[in-house]
């Protein structure tokens, strides 16, 4: 009996809720009908332009916010896929480099080439400025010495040593050509030249008598000043070697 009563009460409650729902719909309809009638008094009140500006600003703000939210949402969707693609590429490269020698060489060569291009540009700049003055190979205990101011293009000091009081400076280039410059004090002069079966001619180096010897393509120039004796030996062009001799200071 009690159950039946409770069920009936529940049902009555539902009926009343339905009535309230109906009442709500009637109220909404009343509001809609109310505004379809012209209302003269309130029609005369102008719509404020200031309010129009404020509402339009609200609309723009809303639009910007929604746009940013939407782009962020779509980016979040795409980002994991992009990350997965990059990760896959990275794994493939790593596995390729570790397992395949040919691939590894190719990659490393590419990197070195890039480095070389940078390096070669860098070295080129250094050559054009500093090669004549690059005396880092000269031992510091030599003190003041004579040096050629003009060195043929591409040559740089590659070695310097002392041999029986003769100071020897070796110049070389990338084509494996060399120039040997020797100097020693006149008192200790020990510069020797092989003139057997050689062409010998007298030359003037800065108005000082000297000798030019040519044998088997090798040119040797010897001369001296008041303090020191010098020789230059190389297979390069005779005029270049003479220029170099004349520039010794």
């Amino acid at each position: 009996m009690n159950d039946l009563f409770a069920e009936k009460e529940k049902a009555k409650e539902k009926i009343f809720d339905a009535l309230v729902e109906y009442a709500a719909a009637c109220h909404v309809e009343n509001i809609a009908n109310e505004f379809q009638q012209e209302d003269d008094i309130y029609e005369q009140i102008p719509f404020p332009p200031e309010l129009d500006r404020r509402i339009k600003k609200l609309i723009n703000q809303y639009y910007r916010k929604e746009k940013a939210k939407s782009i962020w949402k779509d980016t979040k969707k795409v980002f994991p896929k992009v990350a997965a693609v990059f990760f896959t590429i990275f794994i493939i490269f790593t596995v390729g480099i570790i397992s395949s020698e040919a691939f590894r060489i190719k990659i490393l060569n590419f990197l070195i080439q890039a480095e070389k291009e940078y390096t070669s540009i860098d070295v080129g700049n250094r050559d054009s400025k500093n090669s004549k003055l690059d005396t880092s190979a000269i031992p510091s205990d030599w003190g003041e010495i004579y040096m050629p101011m003009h060195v043929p293009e591409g040559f740089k000091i590659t070695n310097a040593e002392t041999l029986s009081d003769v100071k020897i400076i070796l110049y070389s280039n990338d084509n494996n050509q060399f120039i040997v410059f020797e100097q020693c004090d006149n008192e200790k002069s020990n510069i020797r030249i092989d003139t057997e079966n050689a062409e010998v001619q007298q030359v003037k180096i800065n108005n000082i008598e000297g000798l030019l010897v040519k044998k088997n393509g090798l040119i040797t120039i010897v001369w001296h000043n008041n303090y020191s004796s010098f020789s230059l030996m190389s297979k390069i062009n005779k005029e270049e070697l003479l220029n170099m001799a004349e520039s010794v200071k």
Partner: protein
Amino acid sequence: MLIFFAMIKDNQDRCKLEELYLKYQKDMFRVAYRILNDYHLAQDAVQLAFIKLIDNLDKINEINCNGTRAFVVIIVRNISINIYRKRRKESGISLDEMEYDIPDNNELALEDKVINNEMLAKILLKIKEMHPPYADIISLKYFYHYSNDEIAKMLDISNENVRVRLHRGRQSLLRLLSDEEIKK
């Protein structure tokens, strides 16, 4: 491509918002002015109401329909009443106290009296006599099917307040309908 589609969707929302504003701007201002009788306060009420509409834009499907019109009016009206209340607080008069001291008595007995075949016609008549804030909140709950939380947020009132008003609204409807029965 993603940004393009995002922009289309945002454009649709923006068009909807602009359409809503253009359609109901005058109605909103009129409702607010009627309650507040102040040009500047009415503007504030409309702006606040519009912010509420933006927050609930996804629930508005059709701009040009009576349901949407009524919804807009309900929001503006209640926002305006809130502003009015704040200004009248000093006078010690609250709109809730003004009328509706409806005794919470024997709902079951009254229900027995009102549930009959002529009920629907009576409801249609009597709902006009109900205090508008109560009628509005009943509409939001039973016609628009908003939750109590959503109603509280929309009208800037507490959940407790929503429950109390819904209860009083129902009581008020019962009272109106039962008075009609008693007169018979």
